[in-house]
């Protein structure tokens, strides 16, 4: 840093055949344009255009006098004006304003508080905004509804148990396709299928969701037998979907109607019946 110029520039000065540097000054705008030519590392001719904004300031005499001082020391060979090798205008930076007032406390709102405005509890009897057991019309309406339900419930439960009618032909049928193939796989499989009837699939969950959050969200609809939250093996973060097994199918149905489309953690939940895994296979 003795001469203020890097060795590369000094070599360039010896070079001949360079167009002379020029300077233009636009007095109206106060913009000075300096054009220089030099060879770059690959030996190609490079045109360097620098623009300066010239501002006129009124300053005290002493500052003005100092402005006229000659450069000295390592800066002595520098031409007037900033030397680009020493003075660099860097990228724009902004002051980041930080507010560490009690804002986080507001954000830590209970997710269930948001639920309060929405209808998650619906009476089965009068469709009111309360638990069924606390329904004021329990005594009058319930017996009536039970009668109605008995009529509708049966066909709903029935389909999974009824299998297609057996075909009796002389053809060979592989064991998997034979009658009762689905039933005969053992006790555990059949119980799982029973569960699937009351299983709902929740998608579009946020990554921060935990099983306890789901527990909190779905417990109001009825007893839950199992919650499965899909997690990434390595990071342990939620993959964004979960299965929830209710003990009763109607609880699951109410959960679907209650929570589907519900905003949770800035995402809109999508809740539907889980497709039985046996069908996909």
């Amino acid at each position: 840093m003795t001469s203020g110029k890097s060795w590369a520039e000094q070599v360039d000065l010896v070079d001949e055949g360079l167009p002379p540097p020029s300077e233009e000054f636009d007095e109206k705008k106060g913009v000075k344009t300096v054009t220089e030519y030099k060879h770059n590392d690959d030996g190609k001719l490079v045109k360097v255009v620098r623009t300066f904004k010239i501002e006129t300031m009124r300053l005290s005499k002493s500052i003005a006098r100092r402005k006229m001082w000659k450069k000295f020391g390592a800066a002595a060979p520098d031409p007037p004006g900033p030397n680009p090798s020493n003075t660099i205008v860097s990228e724009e930076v902004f002051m980041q304003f930080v507010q560490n007032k009690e804002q986080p406390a507001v954000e830590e709102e209970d997710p269930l508080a948001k639920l309060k405005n929405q209808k998650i509890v619906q009476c089965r009897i009068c469709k009111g905004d309360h638990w069924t057991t606390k329904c004021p019309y329990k005594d009058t309406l319930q017996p009536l509804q039970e009668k109605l339900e008995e009529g509708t419930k049966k066909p709903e439960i029935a389909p999974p148990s009824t299998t297609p009618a057996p075909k009796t032909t002389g053809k060979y049928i592989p064991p998997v396709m034979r009658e009762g193939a689905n039933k005969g796989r053992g006790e555990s499989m059949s119980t799982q299928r029973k569960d699937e009837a009351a299983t709902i699939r929740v998608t579009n969950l946020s990554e921060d969701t935990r099983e306890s959050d789901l527990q909190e969200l779905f417990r109001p609809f009825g007893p839950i037998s199992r919650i499965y939250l899909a997690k990434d093996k390595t990071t342990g973060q939620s993959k964004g979907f979960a299965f929830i097994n209710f003990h009763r199918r109607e609880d699951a149905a109410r959960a679907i109607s209650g929570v589907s489309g519900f905003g949770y953690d800035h995402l809109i939940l999508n809740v539907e019946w889980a497709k039985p895994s046996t069908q996909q296979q």
Partner: protein
Amino acid sequence: MKPIMLHGHERSITQIKYNREGDLIFSSAKDPQPNVWYSLNGERLGSFVGHNGAVWCIDCTWDSTKVLTGAADNTCKIWDCETGSQLNSLETRTAVRTNGFSYSGNLVMYSTDKTMGFPCEIHMFDIRDGSQIESGNPYLTIPIDTSMSKITSAIWGPGEDFILTGHENGEINQFDIKTGTRIKGCKDHTKQINDIQPYKDNSMFITASKDNTARLFDMETLEPLKMYKTERPINSAAISPLHDHVVMGGGQEAMQVTTTSTRVGKFDARFFHLVFEEEFGRVKGHFGPINSVAFHPDGKSYSSGGEDGYVRVHYFDPNYLDFSCEY
């Protein structure tokens, strides 16, 4: 804002200072050439050639005619600011750690390190008396006895009455400049005091300490007024002459820098409110800890010098100048 980067040093910056009118910035670094720059456009006015070691401190007189530098080559030199020529060189026995011109510019103070069996001392010269300068005999020497730790930062008090010193163990002391006796002291900091800077009217001063805090003290009584707490050692702190703001620069120690990432290193300049002791803003930019910060005397710009060897001159955006804390 678009900071102007001043690249005139090959090693880390040790101290930067504006002159009284704010048109010049003086910078000293661990290389032997201190520089002086025009603050307005970042143009280098010159460099002071003659030192042989790291320059620890730099100061200039109120009228910007003389510059004082203290270096690890055991000299404290006085320069002519206009021509860059060396006027005097004061030999010492150990490295010069801190120095300063008095309010009038007639008195010079510097402190030396406690190394090589020599004690830490404050030396005072009257530069009007040629015999003192030529013989190198100060008119007053204040030895810091071994019970006290060495001086790591020092400034002149107001009105040339006393010198304010910050010590390695966190002590702050006032020394009378006529008798050399200790007037009073306090020990609010628990670790080394890296920097002391006065408020514009000299009624109070701010200290930057390795114990992660900066504190505001009353100049006369040394009564602690405010404390600004961070989670990293503070190398330098300055009080805005325009707003009730404080800027602080720091970061972890230079020896630990290579083992942490820039994001963890926390190398940004931090702005605190002077009264509420609350942080309200940060400015990023340096690639290492900030070693020295200084406010322009008009309060509309500030500069910081870092371990990365750059001085960055920032002219504030209107959003800072219009900013006011809610209360």
